[in-house]
C-alpha cells in the first residue's frame, strides 16, 4: 500500500530579478520582474509502507524542497501530493502525527537540558500515553545505546550521541514514515556505522518507512532498498542498486592480473583491456545475464596460468556508480526501472 504518492509535482521559487550594470541596483529596487527557478520539476513516485528509500542528488537538486513538501512545510506549485492519503500542507497537524522528521544540521532537542526532558515534552505535544511512552523510551534507549547519556544535558553530548537522541525523538510517537535530511552529516566513521545499523534495524522491526536524503552513499547502500536520483529538479533514476549498476554498467567487474613475466598480448571475448603495463594488465569484464561464471572461466583459460602472481577483482564502488549516474543519466533521458 502506497504511503507516499506524488504525481507530476512541481515547486517553483520566485526571486526578484537582479540587474547588473551601473544602474542595475536602482533597477533592481524598482522592478517587479521575477526570476522563476524550478527546484522540483515534475517528479512522480510512490513509496510503500515499510520501504526504505534514499533520495539522492547533487547540491541544489531539490532534495530538501521535496522533504519540505512531503512534511507539509512548503506548498507545491502544482501536481499531486499525498502522504497517508492526505495532502500534507492542508492537513499539516494530522500528517505531523504520522511522520517523524530528523534534520541533520538542526537540533530539535533542548540544548541546555537533559535528553530525557526533550522526550518528556514530546510526549505532551503528541499526547503519548504514559505506558506507550515508557515502553518506547526504554526500547530506544536500549536499541540506540543511550543509557549513558540520556540524563545528560544535550550541550555535553557528542555529535553522534546527539543524532541518536534526535532519531529516538522523531520516533517516539511511532510515525509511519521517518524523513531524514542528511542524518549522518559531520559524524565520525563509528557513529555513522551505528546510526546506519539502527535505521536498518528500526526499518525492519517496526516497519516504519524511511526516506532519507544524503551525500554519503554508504548511507544509501546500508540503509536503503531503493534509490531515487534527482538532478536539476527531475528524477533521473528510480530503482534498486542492482538495477542502477546495470544501467550504468557498474555491474561489470574490473580485473587486474599481475604476472611474474610479461606474457605479451592477452584478449578475452567478454572483456576489454583497459590498461596494459606489461606485467600488470587491467580488464573490464562485460556482464551478461546468465553467464555469471564466464569471468572465472576466462581467467582460467589464460595459457600461462602459472605465471600469474596476483589477481584482484573489483566491483565498481557505489561512489563511482552514482557519479556515473549524475553524468550519464542527466544527459540521456529519464530512466525508470
Amino acid at each position: 500500500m502506497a504511503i507516499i504518492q506524488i504525481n507530476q509535482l512541481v515547486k517553483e521559487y520566485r526571486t526578484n530579478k537582479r540587474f547588473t550594470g551601473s544602474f542595475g541596483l536602482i533597477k533592481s529596487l524598482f522592478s517587479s520582474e521575477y526570476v522563476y527557478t524550478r527546484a522540483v520539476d515534475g517528479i512522480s513516485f510512490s513509496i510503500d509502507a515499510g520501504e526504505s528509500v534514499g533520495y539522492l542528488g547533487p547540491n541544489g537538486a531539490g532534495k530538501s524542497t521535496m522533504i519540505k513538501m512531503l512534511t507539509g512545510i512548503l506548498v507545491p506549485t502544482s501536481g499531486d501530493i499525498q502522504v497517508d492519503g492526505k495532502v500534507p500542507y492542508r492537513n499539516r497537524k494530522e500528517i505531523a502525527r504520522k511522520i517523524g522528521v530528523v534534520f541533520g544540521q538542526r537540533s530539535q532537542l533542548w540544548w541546555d537540558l537533559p535528553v530525557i526532558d526533550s522526550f518528556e515534552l514530546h510526549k505532551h505535544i503528541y499526547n503519548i500515553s504514559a505506558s506507550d511512552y515508557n515502553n518506547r523510551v526504554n526500547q530506544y534507549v536500549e536499541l540506540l545505546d543511550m543509557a549513558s547519556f540520556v540524563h545528560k544535558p544535550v550541550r555535553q553530548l557528542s555529535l553522534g550521541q546527539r543524532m541518536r537522541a534526535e532519531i529516538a525523538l522523531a520516533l517516539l510517537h511511532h510515525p509511519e514514515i521517518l524523513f531524514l535530511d542528511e542524518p549522518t552529516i559531520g559524524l565520525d566513521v563509528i557513529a555513522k556505522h551505528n546510526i546506519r545499523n539502527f535505521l536498518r534495524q528500526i526499518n525492519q522491526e517496526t516497519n516504519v518507512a524511511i526516506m532519507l536524503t544524503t551525500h554519503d552513499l554508504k548511507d544509501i547502500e546500508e540503509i536503503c532498498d531503493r534509490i531515487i536520483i534527482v538532478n536539476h529538479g527531475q528524477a533521473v533514476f528510480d530503482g534498486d542498486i542492482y538495477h542502477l549498476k546495470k544501467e550504468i554498467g557498474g555491474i561489470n567487474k574490473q580485473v587486474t592480473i599481475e604476472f611474474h613475466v610479461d606474457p605479451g598480448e592477452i584478449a578475452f571475448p567478454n572483456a576489454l583491456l583497459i590498461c596494459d603495463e606489461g606485467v600488470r594488465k587491467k580488464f573490464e569484464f562485460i556482464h551478461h545475464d546468465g553467464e555469471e561464471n564466464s569471468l572465472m572461466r576466462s581467467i582460467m583459460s589464460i595459457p600461462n596460468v602459472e605465471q600469474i602472481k596476483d589477481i584482484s577483482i573489483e566491483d565498481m564502488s557505489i561512489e563511482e556508480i552514482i557519479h556515473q549516474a549524475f553524468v550519464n543519466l542527466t544527459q540521456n533521458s529519464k530512466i525508470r526501472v
Partner: protein
Amino acid sequence: MSVKLFIHFLKIIMRSRMEYRADFLLGMVGQILGYAANYVIVWLLLNRFTSIEGWAWPEMAFLISINVLTYAIGASFTYSPMLNLEQLMIKGDLDKYLIKPIHPFAYLIASYFNFGYIAHILISAVLLIWSLGNLNVHWGVFEFTYFLFTLLSGSMLQAGGLILIGSWSLYFMKSQFMGDLYFKIKDVINYPISAYAGVIQVVLTWMMPLAFINYYPALYLLQKEENTSLLLVPMVGPLFLFLTIVVWHRGIRQYQGAGS
C-alpha cells in the same frame, strides 16, 4: 495548545534558564538600572519644571509604569519568538515549528516564553504602587476592574506590536532595523501624547494605537478627562492582537509558498 502543555513548556524553559542563574540575576540588575534611568531622567526634568502638559511627577510615574508593566507582560510572550524569527528563517529552524501537531504560532510562543521580564515587572510595579499612593484619585471596585482590564488590553497591544515585527520578517526576511525603529518610536508614549502635534496624536490613536496602552487609561483613571468613550479602551487590545495574529498567519502562508 492546552494550558497543561503550555505550563509544561514554562517548566522546561525555567529549568533551561536556571542553568545560567548568575547571568540571569546579573541581567536583572542591569535591566533594573536601565529602566530606573528612564524614570530618573523624567524625575530630573520635573524636578526643574514641576509638570509636563499638566502631569506632575507621580502622574508621570503612573503613565510610564503602565507602559513598562504592560510591555513586560506582552513581551514575555512575543518578544523572543518574534525578534528571533529572522534568524530562525535564515538558519531554516522555522521548519521545526511546522512539523508538529500543534499550531506553529502557539508552539513558537510557548517555546520562546521569556522569564527575563521579571526585572521590568519589579521596577514598574514598585513605581506604580508608589505613584498610586501619592495620587489623589478615587479608587473603587469599578476603577480597579477597569484598571485590570486596561493592563490586559495594554499587554495585548504591546504583544501585538512585536508580532507585527515578526510578520515583517516573514514577508521580507529582514526585520532587524524595523525592530530597532519600533523601539525608538515606542518611547513616545512615555510622555502624554498631548505634547505632540495633532497629526501625531491621530497616528498614535488610529494607526499605531500606542496611546491606548497607557495614555487613554491614565486620562480616565487620573480623572483628567470625563469622556465615556474612554470606557471602551480595554476593547482595543484584544482587537489589535487578533488583527496582528491574522497578519502573522498570512505571513506564514507566504513563507510556505502558498501565494506565489
